């Protein structure tokens, strides 16, 4: 059971219960919908981008705890960052979740790095990644994203 507890660790359960930046905001400039057909995860990412800076990031959707926590943490992390930085964080997150999982990626990601334990559950990695792919799509003006 210890593996399970590292997956559903305190931070994850807390973010799942009280997700940050949750719900469609009244105003936004960029939006994309992420779908994980296979799991049924769905996430909307709403960004307010001004002069290449993400002024606000929100998300909505009905997803599992991993996906909720990941999105919640992500929106916290990217708020106030430049687009360039956000894309860099996306790359870092993907790197962390990949086989190599570079140490530096973890450093950059701060609290989000706690999701590294999802890697022990290969079937769930996509849940953690979905919001990031959706962020990337929103920034790039694509309406939909998937991790597959």
């Amino acid at each position, binding site marked *: 059971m210890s593996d*399970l507890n590292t997956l*559903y660790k305190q931070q994850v359960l807390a973010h799942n219960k009280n997700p940050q930046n949750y719900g469609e905001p009244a105003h936004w400039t960029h939006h994309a919908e992420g779908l994980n057909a*296979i799991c*049924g995860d769905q996430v909307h990412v709403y960004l307010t981008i001004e002069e290449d800076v993400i002024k606000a990031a929100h998300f909505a959707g009905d*997803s*599992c705890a*991993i*996906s909720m926590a990941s999105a919640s943490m992500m929106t916290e992390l990217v708020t106030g960052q430049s687009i360039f930085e956000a894309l860099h964080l996306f790359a870092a997150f993907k790197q962390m979740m990949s086989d190599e999982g570079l140490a530096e990626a973890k450093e950059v990601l701060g609290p989000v790095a706690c999701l590294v334990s999802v890697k022990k559950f290969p079937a769930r990695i996509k849940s953690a990644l979905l919001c990031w792919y959706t962020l990337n799509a929103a920034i790039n003006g694509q309406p939909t994203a998937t991790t597959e």
Partner: protein
Amino acid sequence: MLREAFPCLHQQVNGKDLVYFDNAATAMRPQVVIDAVNDYYCRHNANIHRGVHCLSGRATDLYEQARASLARLIHAPSPDNLIFVRGCTEAVNLVAQTFVRERLKPGDEILISHLEHHSNIVPWQILCQQTGAKLKVIPMNDRGELVLDELDTLMNERTKFMSVIHVSNALGTINPVKELIAKAHAKDIPVLVDGAQSTPHLKVDVQDLDCDFYTVSGHKMYGPTGSGVLYGKATHLEAMPPYHGGGEMISKVTFEETVYNKVPAKFEAGTPNIAGGIGLGAAAEFMLDVGLEAIAQREDHLKQYTEQALKTIPGLRILGEASQKSPVFSFLIDGIHPHDIGTIIDHHGVAIRTGHHCTMPIFQFFDVPGSCRASLAFYNTEHEVDILVESLNQAKAMFS
């Protein structure tokens, strides 16, 4: 005991005894099926229908005997009514493209139900795009039963085909297909029945149903992957153009002109899944040996036991409570996403499916993104159901 016949059931996952409740996704295979596949590769390895040599004769006989076994299982008038296919998905696409396509004009309608699997929705959507026809849907109610009130309007002179699921893979609902077929035939509408989830559990009699087409998925009925059959009435199969072009489906080829072979060869272009077909025949014989009645009774008992057991869990909601249903349980637990439940109980050795089960419209109806689904087969046990319940309680504890 019957359970012993299924080697894959007897293993541990994540340090716990495996509880396999994902039978609606794919069933386990009994040793006789595995042996039939193995024997073909180890003893009768040859292509079929085309050889004078000994191995080819043996392989051909085994393959055609398998077709006969399947005919017996679903009570087809003749083995020639059966076309070997990869599974139900291919079967539906085949009928859509070869039987229905040429009957459609823009504005015509195809009737399906709200309970369909994607494989009985998307082929018709594609066909509608190709022809300008429209897709119509028999609605369902909160219990997951089809609502037949408006059938008289839904079946009209524009309705050129009906395709309905026999047993819902998502909710377990057993549909009154015989009644639906009779109503459709009264208006000259041919009917396909998606039998992916019926043949593993129920006695099916295609002649009694009087369906025009019936689809069987091998891997759901304890047979090999990549196997299945499409049953069709002889007159339809005779009249239909072929599907794939290739070897075996012809009787004469020149560059100018080609003469097609007889049914069922006409629809079986290329080398088929020979081992799969032979294994599927073994699965049919296995089911007939166990007894279709015995299977149905055992599963009915398991269904009742499971329903009782699940209802002891506070906050658990079962989707689909049709009066006629098979041992399939879609459920939700307050405050825990199905996906998380799946992961947690997998750590207790319990394999269920989570998500939309290839039936998104059903979950759009219930306005949820998906569910947990425990689908049982006759080889499951009450003890396994108890473990499921216990593991669900643990999941709740974890998220409380």
